[in-house]
């Protein structure tokens, strides 16, 4: 047998350093988590709701910083796209998910080993954790080996795993675990409790008493009997009585418990750091894909966009507001998608039309798509070609702020001023209903001023407004929310390239409630 000291050293430490991260291909671009915070456009674009939905159930990985981090080089975006594409293979995502679950269980076990006091109990939690870890690594490598991997990230990771499982530390740990588990499984004992006296003795032959009782009451039992599982406080520690019982059991089986002591000492240094980092970072992909899969089930599409940091002719088909889709999916309501494009000199969408028609939703969709593209994620739409902005600015209506004594109009102006000061020709500005608290001629005057600046900078802009006049300026595409006549089942509206039209309100409401003759025939099937 090799000595413990020889076995804990990995053979190829140099290689371990060369694998860095499944999220960042270049150490220079690595995230500095301390300095990163929520981008300013987050709440206006409802990105917060998206992030919340994505990371729900993934809180322990603390993924937020990765979703805040707008990537600087198109190369990392490609690196991530490669990995996202890799997940189209369902076997891979299943393998990764089961690996993560195992790692989660392992962490829970280690946590317990930390917390409990009884020696034999501590050692047992540690042993179980080590066993889960080894199996997790083994299973993952096995699954990856069968796959035709193409991404730079995964190829490097598989290489790393291959070397790791041959290291002597890993090999001896698996051997020890197997032996010890067999021994422990054989331990059985019996407790006899009478009054306050507890007797520990070797296990009784099973008398199947429960079956006997069940037979007598059989006729009153109408469903499979659930044992009455009393709610016991879920503490992992043992108190002095349990510890005492365990000590007496150890006395009945001394050899087995001696082996347990040895194991802990020998394998204190697992798990490997790179594996731990991988386990966290891969959740960025897993969590996001889990959400996209859920939303795809509602008949919506996601795509990996074509991105560029120079070309501003963008387009998207069947794009949608992901935050809205998330909340509509919960209520099982359909989501309306929108197609849009900007070509040649077109840079600005001015959105007009009836309220409740999806104008704001369109503006958010536009912003979300560009933000998500910027962090290397697939975007909500069937296909998309997007621009990589240096920054996304938003100007949405704000709740009246009483502490801040500024008027609403003044506040609007201050905010748009600071946006126009900070933005560059490579920025995106999204404006939703600005200058609503003043006269139409004022609003028009101010709106035109803002638009002129945007036109001058040649930046991409979305402007939701009730001022029709703004839709006729240069570089502007006029789009409008409409009531969907062709498909009254949809409760939200399309935004299309055209001016607003005036439908009779009463008929529109009837249609909205799906109560025309045809609607009702459709809704009540004979």
């Amino acid at each position, binding site marked *: 047998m090799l000595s413990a000291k020889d076995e804990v050293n990995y053979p190829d430490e140099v290689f371990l350093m060369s694998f860095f991260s499944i999220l960042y291909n270049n150490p220079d671009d690595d995230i500095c988590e301390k300095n990163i915070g929520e981008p300013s456009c987050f709440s206006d674009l409802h990105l917060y709701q998206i992030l919340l939905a994505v990371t729900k159930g993934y809180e322990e990985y603390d993924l937020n910083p990765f979703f805040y981090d707008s990537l600087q080089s198109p190369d990392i975006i490609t690196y991530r796209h490669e990995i996202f594409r890799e997940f189209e293979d369902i076997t891979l995502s299943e393998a990764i998910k089961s690996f993560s679950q195992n790692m989660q269980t392992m962490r829970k076990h280690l946590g*317990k080993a930390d917390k*409990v006091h009884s020696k*034999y*109990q501590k050692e*047992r939690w540690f042993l*179980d954790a080590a066993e889960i870890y080894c199996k997790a690594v083994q299973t993952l490598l096995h699954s990856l080996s069968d796959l035709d991997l193409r991404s730079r990230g995964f190829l490097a990771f598989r290489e790393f795993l291959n070397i790791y499982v041959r290291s002597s530390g890993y090999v001896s740990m698996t051997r020890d675990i197997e032996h010890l588990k067999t021994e422990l499984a054989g*331990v*059985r*004992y*019996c*407790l*006899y*409790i*009478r009054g*306050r*006296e*507890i*007797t*520990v*003795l070797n*296990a*009784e032959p*099973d008398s199947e*008493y*429960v079956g006997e*009782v*069940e037979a*007598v*009451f059989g*006729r*009153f*039992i*109408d469903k499979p*009997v*659930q*044992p*009455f*599982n*009393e*709610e*016991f406080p879920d503490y*992992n520690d043992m*108190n002095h*009585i*349990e510890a*005492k019982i365990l000590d007496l059991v150890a*006395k*009945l089986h001394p050899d087995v418990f001696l082996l347990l002591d040895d194991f802990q000492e020998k394998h204190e240094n697992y798990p490997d750091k790179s594996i731990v980092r991988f386990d966290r970072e891969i959740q960025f992909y897993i969590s996001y894909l889990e959400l996209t899969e859920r939303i795809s089930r509602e008949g919506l599409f996601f795509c990996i966009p074509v991105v560029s940091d120079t070309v501003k002719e963008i387009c998207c088909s069947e794009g949608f507001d992901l935050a809205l889709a998330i909340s509509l999916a919960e209520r099982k309501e359909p989501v309306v998608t929108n197609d849009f494009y900007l070509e040649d000199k077109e840079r600005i969408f001015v959105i007009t039309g009836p309220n409740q028609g999806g104008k704001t939703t369109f503006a958010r969709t536009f912003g979300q798509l560009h933000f998500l593209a910027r962090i290397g994620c697939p975007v909500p739409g069937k296909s998309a070609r997007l621009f990589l902005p240096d920054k996304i600015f938003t100007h949405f209506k704000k709740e009246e702020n009483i502490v801040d004594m500024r008027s609403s109009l003044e506040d609007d102006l201050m905010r748009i001023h600071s946006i126009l000061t900070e933005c560059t020709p490579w920025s995106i500005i999204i404006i939703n209903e600005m200058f609503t608290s003043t006269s139409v001629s004022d609003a028009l005057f101010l709106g035109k001023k803002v638009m002129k600046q945007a036109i001058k900078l040649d930046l991409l802009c979305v402007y939701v407004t009730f001022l029709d006049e703004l839709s006729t300026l240069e570089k502007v595409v006029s789009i409008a929310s409409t009531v969907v006549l062709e498909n009254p089942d949809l409760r939200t509206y399309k935004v299309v390239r055209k001016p607003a039209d005036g439908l*009779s309100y*009463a*008929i529109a*409401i009837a249609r909205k*409630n799906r109560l025309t*003759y*045809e609607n*009702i*025939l459709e*809704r*009540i099937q*004979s």
Partner: protein
Amino acid sequence: MKSHLLYPDRDFNPEWGMLRRSPSPQRWLNRDYDKMWACFPEYMQMTVQDLELDILFQSMACGDKFLFEVAKNVFFTTETDIETILYRQDILRDCTANSEVVREIYRIVVDLIEEYLSGLNWYSGKTADSVRSTSVHALGLFTDAFLELKKIAGEHADRFQSGGFKEFFSMLERETSDEYISSLKEKFEELSFKNGIFTNVELGKGNKGINYTLQKNRMIKKPGWLSGFLSTGSPSQYSFCIADRDIAGFRTLAEIKGRSMSSVSGILLNSSDHIFSFFISLKTELAFYIGCLNLRDRLISIGSPLSFPVPAEHGGRDFSFKELYDVCLALQKGEKVTGNDVEAEDIDLIIITGANRGGKSTFLRSIGVAQLMMQCGSFVPAESFRSNICTGIYTHFQRGEDHDMKSGKYDEELRRMSEIVDHLKPGGLVLFNESFAATNEREGSEISRQIVCALLKRRIKVAFVTHLYDFSQSLYEKNMDNSLFLRAERKNSGERTFRMKEGEPLRTSYGRDLYEKIFHESPLPVSFEDRK
């Protein structure tokens, strides 16, 4: 064990309200009422409100909340099976013939349930051990109640004619024979574990004990004697005692007992729960008939007629009745009210027009209430009533302004209609009262026409009280075989008879009369001060 007094082959499960929480009215707090009824569908709530059914339920309940809850639940668990309706009618006939016996059975069940519940406290059911002892106690109570019910059955069962009651009494004899009851009592004794418990254990996660399995009791030698005897060699058992004030120690002891006892407690709990739920079902089902008895007593005392309706297959379109009156109005006034007669076959559409305050709404309500009462198996407020079974009964009545400002009145009307359409199936019945009048007449008529025509096409029966002349007249001109036009009768003197007569819609409603009357009594002010 099943009581099956509402359905020949299954239990009745109340879906709404306080019954879902606890079977004891003593434990119901008024403040929880709205919360517990919150899942009651909005369209049903509309029906309760539109038909003023609470008045009916209150008469059935006679102040008993439990009866009220049951009545409301049975009413809205719309029954569409004729066999079931006739099954209930037979049982109800038995109840009227033997009302004292039925009320006595009900009393026994109510008392038993109260006694059982009062024996529970916060600790019952918390531990496997308390579950065991509580269950044994409860099973004792139930056993006594069975004996009491069997005694009544012995004395009166032969006077009951209905299939439901006959099966109930024979089920009692079958399931609770005297020998079985005494064998149960023996087992309870054994399950008291007076000599301690044996349990086998294995090592689980963190080396804590798992898979505790209770073993049949056996005698064990005194550990003190044994350990003394074996102390020189390698002992095969070790004992220790928990110190007097060691609270945590005793807790652990209880925990080990709890884990070992879980299967046995599960069995006992399941049995006790099963029998308890039998008694709850029995109480709930009887409560419906008790409610009907109460209502019957009340209506007889005010001299209003009652009869058992004749339900027809729901494919058909039967619609005929004599002296059908609005039971809620009669109950509210405490006197006999005017009824209506209609003799019509194959009618899908009834349009009711005519004078304001002429009894149109009352008539519409009487149709809805009678239909509901028939379909829950009750008698109906009429001298005779024959109608086809509907797959559902819906009401769409004009409302006051809504105050939440979220949507206009017209939008609100349509939203409610949409809610109804969500639930409508072919073979349903919809009652409209002055619907879609919140917009102008042309638009209101158009939307009414579209809705009504679509409903008729889907074989849904419609009764529509309306002032929309454009709408009613256009339907009249279509001259459809399956439509019936009724008009609130108004004599030349302006006097109203509150009776509906067949007749074409008239352009004017008689609002003028009302106007004259009201405005004559209290004239409008003629001048205002300038606003400051």
